[in-house]
Each structure stands twice: as C-alpha cells, then as structure tokens.
C-alpha cells in the first residue's frame, strides 16, 4: 500500500468511526438502561412492572427498565454467576433465605436515606416486622415488596367428592387442625386423586416444610442461628407425623411424583397466597383459601418474603435507588398489592386489598392475608444459606423412604450442619 493510499484509508475509516464513537458517548450520557432480575415470568406481573417503569419515564424520560425473568429453581445461582461474571443487574429480587448473604455482604446500596428524601414515600408506614430481615445497622438494604403468608388452597370439588368435610366447614366447627387436614387429604388420596401438596418442596427444598413444622413449634435452627433444631422434640414429632402422612397414609404424594394442585390434581396445597395468580382462569374448580391448620403448638402463620435491592458501586446505582423508591411508593405499592401482599401498614386493610384482589373474598383477606402478615414469622434464613440448604438436603434424603430410622436421620442432619451454623 502506498503512503497516499494509506492516508486515504485512515481518513476514510476515521470519517466512519469518529461520528459513531461520538454518538456512543452522547448516547451513554443520555439514556440509562436499568435491568432488574426477577423470578416470575407471569405475564400479569410483567405487565404491571412495565407499567410502573413507564410511569417512571414521566419524570425520567431517559431511563428505561427491563425486567429479566430467571428460572425460579436456580435463581440465586444465576444471579451470583452474573455478578461473578462482572455483569450484575442494577436491581434484583432476593429470597428471604439469602437475605443475610446479600444484606451483610455490602453488595447492596443503602436505601433509607434516599427513601426518606423521596416526597410522599413515608418509610415509617412500612412495618418493622417486614423490614427486620433486610435491615443492618438501622439501614434498609432491600425493600420487602412481597410479604406473603403461607396458606392452604383447597379444591372443594375433590374434597366433597371424597365425602370429607371441607376446610371451611372444619373451620366453622373449630376443628381445623393438622390431624383433620391430613385426614381430609388421605380421604381424597384414597379416592384416586392426590391429597396435600407442599408446593415447591419436591423433597429437596425442605425450607418450605417450615409451614408444616412450625405447627409443632419446631425450627430448623435457634433464634441466633447457631444451634441445629432438627433433633429437638418438636421437630422429631413434626417429622414423625409428616413421614406417617406420606408413607403410611399416602396423604401427600411421595418423592419423585409431580402433582400440580392448580391443574386440579390435588385436594389441597400449601403455598404463598401470591400464587393465586396460578388459579385456572376458565373452567376453574370450586376453590377456597384458608389459613394453615392449627398444630399441637397452637395456631401459627409463616411468611415468605421477597425484596428488591439495588446493587452498590454500579454506574447507575443512584438512578436504580431512585427507581426503587418510585416502584415502592404508596401509590405503586397499592398496585403491587394485587399480586404481592404489601408491607405497608396503611394498605393492610380489607378495603384496599379487596380492591386489588378481586379473586379473594373479604373474609379470606381478613383471615388469611391480614392475619397472616400481622402475626406471621418469616421463614428462617442464614448466612451461607445455599451450603446449609444443600447439606441438610443431603442428610434429609434418608428420611424420604418408607423404611427409615427417623431419629438417626435427624441426628445426622444436625451432625452435618452444626459446623456450618456455628461459623
């Protein structure tokens, strides 16, 4: 190539590239693209989030938010892999069980100050019980947008077909306890369908059994998270009852069997009330939503939480925090309340929740949603939860066979997990 030709080529490529580069700089200054990872791919949920993101554009025309649904089963793994790969989202949903990991790590941006400054936000309205898990040194690190009690969805058609009393009838008679609930489940199972499904448990996600064993006053570990609870008497009793219900009575579908309540295949399911969106729209069965049955330790309720946090030290952290403040302000919290039970005291009344939850009767809202949120205890989380979860899962596998040595299995759970809890 001659020198002249070279000069021409350089000039030509500069002529093409420079405006592009300039355009890139200008674009980077103006437009802000925020990305939020979520574990729901529900269309109604996404529509609402997009609506809120559109609303934010009114004051921030340069900001767009995309919502990236990740699969529920390995949500946290996918999220941390994105972080490890240097490509974290700006905002992310976080499970209550990993709260300790995220809140204590310093990965999340502090929110309290920004929220207090946001006009009309009224942070004091958000109940302390709901924010406890997400607060460190009186600083909020993630907003609990979903404080969702575990409850029992019932397929009354299957229950009456099996000749059993419906949970509503049992409640009216003051007999809604675990013995009767499991008897109803057994009756339906004996009649050909399945009895009770503890949703998402699948003999792997044992933390969902919390909604069962709290009825016996059992806990996976002590309040301070240091001592294993699997060998305590309440846990032994609860697991003995559960094992009998699965392997002797057949009241719960056994391991390796996939049964979907919302497809009409089981009499009852324990899940969070935010799963009401899964109820079939057309040709639904006669369903009901009732609180968890009373256990030997009395009545109780269990809450699962999900929060949104903004990642710290990102180019757009400030905008992300601002968007989070907008997304969870009183007005938008009310909109979110149609899917995700709110943590704001001012919204916890039959009137507001009834407007946004047309599927639920005011009785269901009062007895299940409001009572559940007000009295419920959040599922226990722990620092390093994934490893603890996996260790307990591996030991508990020994329990899910008909012929098991229950005390020995529970002892092995504690033996395996105690060093991890003590750390």
């Amino acid at each position, binding site marked *: 190539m001659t020198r002249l030709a070279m000069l021409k080529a350089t000039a030509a490529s500069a002529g093409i590239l420079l405006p592009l580069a300039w355009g890139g700089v200008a674009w980077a200054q103006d437009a802000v693209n925020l990305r939020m990872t979520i574990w729901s791919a529900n269309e109604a949920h996404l529509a609402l989030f997009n609506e809120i993101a559109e609303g934010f554009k009114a004051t921030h025309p340069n900001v767009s938010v995309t919502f990236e649904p990740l699969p529920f089963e390995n949500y946290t793994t996918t999220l*941390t892999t994105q972080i*490890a790969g240097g490509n974290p989202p700006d905002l992310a949903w976080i499970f209550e069980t990993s709260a300790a990991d995220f809140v204590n790590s*310093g*990965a999340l941006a502090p929110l309290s100050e920004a929220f207090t400054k946001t006009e009309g936000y009224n942070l004091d309205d958000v109940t302390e019980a709901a924010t406890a898990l997400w607060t460190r040194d009186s600083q909020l690190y993630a907003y609990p947008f979903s404080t969702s009690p575990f409850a029992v969805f019932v397929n009354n058609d299957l229950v009456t077909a099996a000749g059993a009393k419906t949970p509503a009838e049992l409640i009216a008679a003051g007999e809604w306890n675990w013995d009767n609930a499991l008897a109803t489940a057994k009756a339906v199972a004996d009649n050909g369908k399945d009895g009770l499904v503890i949703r998402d448990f699948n003999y792997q996600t044992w933390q969902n059994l919390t909604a069962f064993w709290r009825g016996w006053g059992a806990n996976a570990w002590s309040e301070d998270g240091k001592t294993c609870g699997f060998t305590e008497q309440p846990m032994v009793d609860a697991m003995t009852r559960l094992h009998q219900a699965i392997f002797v009575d057949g009241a719960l579908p056994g*391991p*390796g069997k996939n049964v979907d309540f919302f497809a009409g295949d089981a009499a009852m399911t324990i899940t969070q009330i935010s799963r009401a969106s899964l109820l079939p729209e057309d040709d639904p069965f006669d369903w009901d939503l009732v609180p968890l049955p009373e256990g030997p330790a009395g009545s109780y309720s269990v809450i699962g939480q999900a929060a949104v946090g903004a990642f710290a*030290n990102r180019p757009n952290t400030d905008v992300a925090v601002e968007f989070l403040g907008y997304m969870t302000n009183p007005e938008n919290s009310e909109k979110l309340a149609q899917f995700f039970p709110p943590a704001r005291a001012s919204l916890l009344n039959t009137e507001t929740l009834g407007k946004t939850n047309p599927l639920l009767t005011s009785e269901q809202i009062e007895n299940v949603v409001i009572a559940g949120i007000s009295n419920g205890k959040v599922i226990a989380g722990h620092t390093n939860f994934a490893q603890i979860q996996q260790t307990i899962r591996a030991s508990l*596998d020994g329990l899910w066979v008909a012929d098991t040595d229950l005390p020995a299995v529970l002892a092995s759970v504690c033996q395996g997990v105690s060093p991890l809890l003590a750390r």
Partner: protein
Amino acid sequence: MTDHSAAPHQKRPFWTIARKDAAAGFLFIAPQTLGIMTFVLIPLGLVFYYSMHEWNVLANTFTFVGDANYQLLLRDPNLPPVLLASAIFSAGLVVLNLSLALLLAVLLDQKLKGIVVFRTLFFSPVVVSLVAWTIVWSFLLQANGGINGILAVFGIEGPNWLRTPTTAMIAVVVVQVFKNVGLNMILFLAALQGVPKEVYEAARVDGAGPFKQFRRITLPMISPTILLTSIITIVGSLQVFAQIAILTKGGPGVSTTVLVYYLYQQAFQFNFFGYGSTLSILLFLIVAVLTFIQWQMRKRIVFYEN
C-alpha cells in the same frame, strides 16, 4: 546464514518461498491456536490463579490465600465420598459402555439386508440433545413413571429409581450409556471392518472356532480402537454434569455427587469460587494422569505398538 559476498548490491525479496510457506502454515493453524488459547490455556491459567484466592462474589473481595484452598482439599470431609461416587460412575460407565458397544458392533457387523436401519437406530441417541434426552428419562424413571409402569405389567413393583442411592447411581450410568453407546459402536464397527478377512480364513483353516477367532484375532486387531474409546469414555465420564443436575441433583444424600457436580455446587451455588477452582485443578490432574497411564499402557495391550 546469508552470503552477502555473492551479490552485495542485489536486494533479495523478503517473501522468499520458504517464508511464504511458513506464513501460510501459521495462518492455517492460527484459528485453532487462538481457539485453544482463548478457551483452554488462558482459562486454565486463570483457574489456577483463582484457586489461590478467596473470591467473595457478593462482597466483591478477592484475597490471596496461598495454598489454603489446597489445604482445605486435603481436609474436606465431603471429598472422599465425592471421589468414590466419581470412581463408581466412571467404572460402571466404561465397563458397561465398552462391552455393550462392542457387542452391538459385532452383532451389526453383518452383511444383512436392512442392517443400516439398525445401525442408525442405535446411533441416533448420540445426536439427540443431551438435556432433552435426560429430561425424558427423568420422567420415565419417576416412581410412577414409564419404567415402573412397564414393570407393573409383569407384576414387578419397581423401585423409586432416582430416590434410592444404589438405583440412582445405576440409573444415571445407564442413561449415559444409552446416550453415547452409539458413538463407540460406530468406532468399533469401523475397526471391525478394517480387520482383513483373510486372517479369519487362515484361522478357520487352522481350526479356530468363532470364540477363539474373536479372542485371538478380532480383539488384538481392534485394540487401538479399544484404547481410544476407553480414553474418550473415561475422560467423558469424569465430566458428567447435566445428567446429575437434571436427574438427581447429586442425591440421594451425596451418592451421585460426582466431582464436576461438586465443584459446580462449591463455585456456583455456595459462591466459593476459589475452592471450586481448586477442585477443577484436581479434576484436571486426575484426567491428565489417567490419560497418561492409558497412553503408556498402549505398549502392553495394543497389538500394533509391539
């Protein structure tokens, strides 16, 4: 060395034929070299570097810890059962896969009408997506799944395959064997067809029966292929991941937690990227040593190397 005295003022062109050839050669191997650098050598170096660090993804800290992760490797109480599970899986897979592949190859090495159809049938799982294949098997292996349904027809009550330690291991091995046996079968078939027919004729004349022919002629003649397939299968068996992740998630207990799944758990689920990297160095060493041993053994067992 260039001789300048012969033509002191004549400028020789830079692109001599030899240089052109060399440049062309380098250009030809450039894509491959770049690929190996990007996807093998650099990651390998990085994994070694990570293995000497503690990397907290959430807190975004990356601290040098020297050989602490290697010390942990020696003390890790979970590692012996994991290595045992890997060994059982690999041994089961290699024995079952190679013997089945050889049996099929011998059966299909016939001049019969329509034999191609059978060869295609046995090979077809190789081209099926691994994940799709495994998911279908996960349905079949459920307690109320297809396999137990068939067994029930014969009045047998099948076990809950994926939930009992022994049957879970058998299940993952068999699912993997059926997936890949076709590949080894084709390799064996090619080797069998490469054995000269006159050797068999000579053996028959000498009075060797079919079993003796197989033992004395076929096996030695195809021994290079046996070595090749056993290396491929062992290395492949140590890398098994998707089947475990889909079928058992390492359970029940830790009975099917093989090394790759364990390192995935440590790195990606528990966020111990440093220790996960240490485990992958261990895996690398195991694969390297096994391949080296097998390569050395060729002198003793492979016919043509004598």
